[in-house]
C-alpha cells in the first residue's frame, strides 16, 4: 500500500474527512454557488443603478398651469396623438344648447312604440310567447333617465303592439348580479318549463351567467321570477377577460340530446368571438372546444344571436330547427362601433361551428341589421304564429341633459318578423309585424304622382306625425347617357344630387321646409347604366336644434331587375322606421324637430335627381295611438267579481 496515493481515490481517507469536517465536502459547491449568485446579483444591481441614472421626464410645464382650479386658455390640444385627434369628435366642439320647451319635449314621446313611462331603457331581454301573452323584458334604470342601476323591466302584450307595463321582473339583489342584471335570453323547454339565462355583474364586477325561472308557470303574466340558488352557472373561462363575457342566447337542442348556448366575448381585444357551452340541465355547463365563430378586427361581440331560417323564406323556425332547407343567421352587436351586424351561413351541428356563405361579408364586416340608430337586437320564435320576431333598442340622439329634463330615454322598435330573402339569397327581410296594421285609421291613396327632376310635391294628408306609408317609385329617364357616379354610400344626404337620384319622401317636415327628414333611394350609375342603389335617411336638417346628433344613415339595397323602388315608412313622432325593398335594408332614425311638430308637421314627395322624373304611387294611413299603459289589475279583478255574481 502506498501512502502517497491521492486522497480522492482512497476509500479510507474519503470517509475520514466526513467524520471530522461534516460540512466540508458539501460546503464547497454551496460556496461556489453563493459566489456566483452574489456576483450575478451585484452585476444586475450595477446595471439597474446605471439605468436609474437617466433623467426623470419633466413634469408638466409649470407656466401653463396658473393656479389650482384654473387652466390657461393658451394650452392647446396636443395635436393628432395616437388614435385620438382633437378633431376626432368634431361635434363636441360645435354643439350649442337649445332652449327646449315642454311642448317640444312632450311631442317627442311616441304614440305606438314601446317605451316605459319614464327613465332609462336599453337592451330588450328574454323575449318569449307564453299562454297567450308576448313578453318584453328590458334593461331599465328605475331611478334616472341615464344608464345605471340596471334592473329587468317587464311588459306584456297580446299582439306585440298594445303593451301593458308590469312590475320589475328582476332586480340586482344577489352578490352575483348586485352590479346589474344585464341582458339575457329565454329558452322554452319541450316539457313547458321556461329557463332564463342572463348576465350578472357581480360584487367584484365580474360578468357571470345566471339562471332564473318563473315562480309560477301557470301565471300567464309571469310576474315573479326566482333565481337559481346555485348561481352563477357559468363564469368567465380561463383566458377570457372578466369584463368581456356577456349576453347568453336562447339554447338549441343538439343531435346528441343536450342543449347548447352561445356567449359573446373577444380574444386579444380585437377578435370578436362566440363561445359555445353545452348543458343537459341548465345548471351545469361545459365549454366546448373551439368556438362557434370568430372574426378578427370586430372587437367585443355583445348580444350575440344565433337562429335558423328557412331557405324558402316562408315561415319562421324554432331555434332548434335543423336539416336541409335551413340556413343559420349569426348576429352580433359590436361594442366598438355600436352597430348590429349579421351574416347568413351554415351551421355544422357535429362540430358546432358556423361558417358564413360569403366570408367577405362575415359577421361585423358586412351587412347590418339596421343602418340607423339601433342596437342590442334580439330574436325569438313565436310558436303561436310560427314567426321569428326581432326586438331592437333605439337610443336617444339628444343630450343627456335633455333626457334628464324630459325624464325618459330610449324606445323599442315595432317588433319585426324576420325571413330569409330567397330572391336575393344574401339578405334577410325585416317587416313590421302585421299586428301594427290594426292601428291604421283612414287611408289616403296617391296614384302616379309625377315628381320632376329637382322638385318637391306636398301630399295633403292632414296630421303627419303618426303615419304608415307604403310608396312605390318608377324612374323615367330624361337623359340619353349619363356619366358614371362615384360610389359613396348615401353621400352628403339628400342635397347630394346624381343623375338617377336621390328621390323619396320628406317626413316630419314643416311647410317652409325649414326642418325635414328625407327618406330616399339613391341609385348610382356604376357602369354603362347598371345601377347600384342605396337606401338612406338624412337627419342633417331634421331639426334646428344644434345639440342633437344629426347624421346621414343608410346602406346598399339590392333592387332586382323585375322590381321597382318601394319603401315603407313608419312615422311616430321622434322615431322613423324605414324599410327598403320589402325590408332588405332597414334604417331607424331619431328626429327632434322644433317647428315641424304637432299640427305643423307635413309630408312631401321629393326628387332631387338631375336626369330623371319619378312617378310615385303611395298609400298612407294615419296611425292610432297604442295607448300603452300599466296593466289594469283592478279592472281584471272587477270583471272577475262581476262575472262571478
Amino acid at each position, binding site marked *: 500500500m502506498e501512502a502517497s496515493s491521492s486522497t480522492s481515490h482512497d476509500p479510507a481517507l474519503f470517509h475520514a474527512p466526513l467524520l471530522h469536517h461534516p460540512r466540508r465536502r458539501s*460546503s464547497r459547491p*454551496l460556496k461556489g454557488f*453563493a459566489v456566483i*449568485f*452574489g456576483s450575478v*446579483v451585484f452585476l444586475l*444591481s450595477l446595471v439597474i*443603478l446605471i439605468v*436609474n441614472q437617466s433623467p*426623470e*421626464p419633466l*413634469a408638466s*410645464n409649470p407656466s*401653463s*398651469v396658473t393656479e389650482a*382650479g*384654473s*387652466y390657461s*386658455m393658451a*394650452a392647446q*390640444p*396636443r395635436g393628432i*396623438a*395616437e*388614435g*385620438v385627434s*382633437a378633431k*376626432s*369628435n368634431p*361635434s*363636441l*366642439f360645435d354643439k*350649442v*344648447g337649445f332652449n327646449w320647451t315642454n311642448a317640444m319635449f312632450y311631442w317627442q314621446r311616441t304614440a305606438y312604440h314601446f317605451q316605459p313611462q319614464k327613465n332609462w331603457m336599453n337592451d330588450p331581454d328574454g323575449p318569449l310567447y307564453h299562454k297567450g301573452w308576448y313578453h318584453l323584458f328590458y334593461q331599465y334604470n328605475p331611478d334616472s333617465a*341615464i*344608464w*345605471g*342601476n340596471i334592473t329587468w323591466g317587464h311588459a306584456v302584450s297580446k299582439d306585440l303592439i298594445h303593451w301593458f307595463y308590469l312590475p320589475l321582473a328582476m332586480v340586482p339583489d344577489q352578490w352575483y348580479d348586485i*352590479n*346589474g342584471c*344585464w341582458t339575457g335570453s329565454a329558452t322554452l323547454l319541450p316539457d313547458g318549463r321556461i329557463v332564463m339565462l342572463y348576465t350578472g*355583474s357581480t360584487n367584484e*364586477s365580474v*360578468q357571470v351567467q345566471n339562471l332564473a325561472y318563473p315562480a309560477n308557470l301557470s301565471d300567464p303574466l309571469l310576474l315573479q321570477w326566482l333565481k337559481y340558488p346555485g348561481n352563477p352557472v357559468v363564469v368567465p373561462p380561463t383566458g377570457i*377577460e*372578466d*369584463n*368581456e363575457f356577456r349576453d347568453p342566447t336562447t339554447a338549441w337542442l343538439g343531435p346528441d340530446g343536450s342543449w347548447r348556448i352561445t356567449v359573446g366575448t373577444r380574444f*386579444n*381585444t*380585437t377578435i370578436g368571438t362566440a363561445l359555445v357551452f353545452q348543458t343537459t340541465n341548465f345548471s351545469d355547463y361545459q365549454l366546448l372546444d373551439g368556438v362557434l365563430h370568430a372574426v378578427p378586427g370586430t372587437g367585443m361581440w355583445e348580444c350575440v344571436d344565433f337562429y335558423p331560417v328557412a331557405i324558402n323564406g316562408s315561415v319562421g323556425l324554432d331555434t332548434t330547427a335543423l336539416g336541409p332547407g335551413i340556413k343559420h343567421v349569426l348576429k352580433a352587436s359590436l*361594442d*366598438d362601433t*355600436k352597430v348590429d351586424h349579421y351574416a347568413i351561413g351554415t351551421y355544422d351541428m357535429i362540430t358546432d361551428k358556423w361558417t358564413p356563405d360569403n366570408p367577405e361579408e362575415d359577421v361585423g364586416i358586412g351587412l347590418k341589421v339596421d343602418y340607423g340608430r339601433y342596437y342590442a337586437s334580439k330574436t325569438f320564435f313565436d310558436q303561436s304564429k310560427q314567426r321569428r320576431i326581432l326586438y331592437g333598442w333605439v337610443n336617444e340622439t339628444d*343630450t*343627456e*341633459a335633455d333626457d*334628464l*329634463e324630459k325624464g325618459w330615454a330610449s324606445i323599442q322598435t315595432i317588433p319585426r318578423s324576420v325571413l330569409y330573402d330567397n330572391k336575393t339569397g344574401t339578405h334577410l327581410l325585416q317587416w313590421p309585424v302585421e299586428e301594427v296594421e290594426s292601428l291604421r285609421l283612414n287611408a289616403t291613396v296617391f296614384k302616379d304622382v309625377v315628381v320632376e327632376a329637382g322638385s318637391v310635391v306636398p301630399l295633403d294628408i292632414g296630421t303627419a306625425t303618426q303615419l304608415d306609408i307604403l310608396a312605390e317609385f318608377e324612374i323615367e329617364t330624361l337623359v340619353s347617357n349619363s356619366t358614371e357616379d362615384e360610389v359613396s354610400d348615401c353621400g352628403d344626404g339628400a342635397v347630394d344630387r346624381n343623375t338617377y337620384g336621390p328621390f323619396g319622401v320628406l317626413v316630419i317636415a314643416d311647410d317652409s321646409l325649414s326642418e325635414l327628414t328625407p327618406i330616399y333611394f339613391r341609385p348610382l350609375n356604376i357602369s354603362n347604366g347598371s345601377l347600384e342603389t342605396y337606401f338612406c335617411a338624412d337627419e342633417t336638417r331634421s331639426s334646428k336644434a344644434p*345639440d342633437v346628433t344629426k347624421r346621414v344613415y343608410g346602406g346598399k339595397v339590392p333592387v332586382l331587375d323585375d322590381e321597382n323602388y318601394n319603401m315603407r315608412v313608419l312615422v311616430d313622432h321622434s322615431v322613423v322606421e324605414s324599410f327598403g325593398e320589402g325590408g332588405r335594408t332597414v334604417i331607424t332614425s331619431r328626429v327632434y324637430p322644433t317647428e315641424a311638430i304637432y299640427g305643423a308637421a307635413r309630408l312631401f314627395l321629393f326628387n332631387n335627381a338631375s336626369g330623371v322624373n319619378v312617378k310615385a304611387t303611395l298609400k298612407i294611413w294615419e296611425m292610432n295611438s297604442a295607448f300603452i299603459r300599466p296593466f289594469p289589475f283592478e279592472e281584471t279583478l272587477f270583471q272577475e267579481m262581476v262575472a262571478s255574481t
Partner: protein
Amino acid sequence: MKILIVIIFAFLVCQANAFRPILLLGNQNLIERTCKQTPFYDLCIWSLKSNPESRDASVKKLAQIMVDSLKTKATETLDLIDELLQDGLALDPEMQKALTSCAERYNVIIRGDVPEINEALKTGDYKFAAKGANDAAIEANSCEIEFPTKSPLTDMNKVVHDVSVVAASIVKIIQTKFSF
C-alpha cells in the same frame, strides 16, 4: 459560511432599494403613455400626477382619477355659478338666463354623467363610460356658448370640457386594452 450568507443577505437588502425606483419609473411610463393618447397631454399629466393614487394605478384607476377630477372641477364651476347668480341685482337678464341654464347643465354633469361613468367603469360596460364622458364635454361647451357676450366661466368651462375629453380617451384605451 455564515458570514457569506450574511453578506449576501445584506447585499440583497441594499439591492431591493435599487429596485424601487423602477416601479415608480414603470408607472410614470404608464401615465405618460396613457396621456400621450389623449388630446390634452399636459392637462392629463397634471391631473393624474397631482393625485397620489396614480402611483401604482392601472389604466382603469387612472380613468377613475380623471373622473374624480371632472367631478371636482364641475363642482367648483357650479359653486361659482351659484355665487354669480346670488349677485342677482347686478346681473342683466341675459346673463342671468345663461347662468341658470349653465347651472342645469352642471347639475347634469355632477348628478348624471359622473355617476354613469363611475358605474360603467366599475361594472365593465365601458361604452356607457364613454357616453357619460362625451356628454359632460358637450354640456360644458353648451354652457360656454350660452353667453351672448363675455362669459364669466370660460376658463372653467374649458377645463371641464378638456378633462371630460381626456376621460373619454382613457376609457377608449381601456376598451382596447386586454385586462384580467
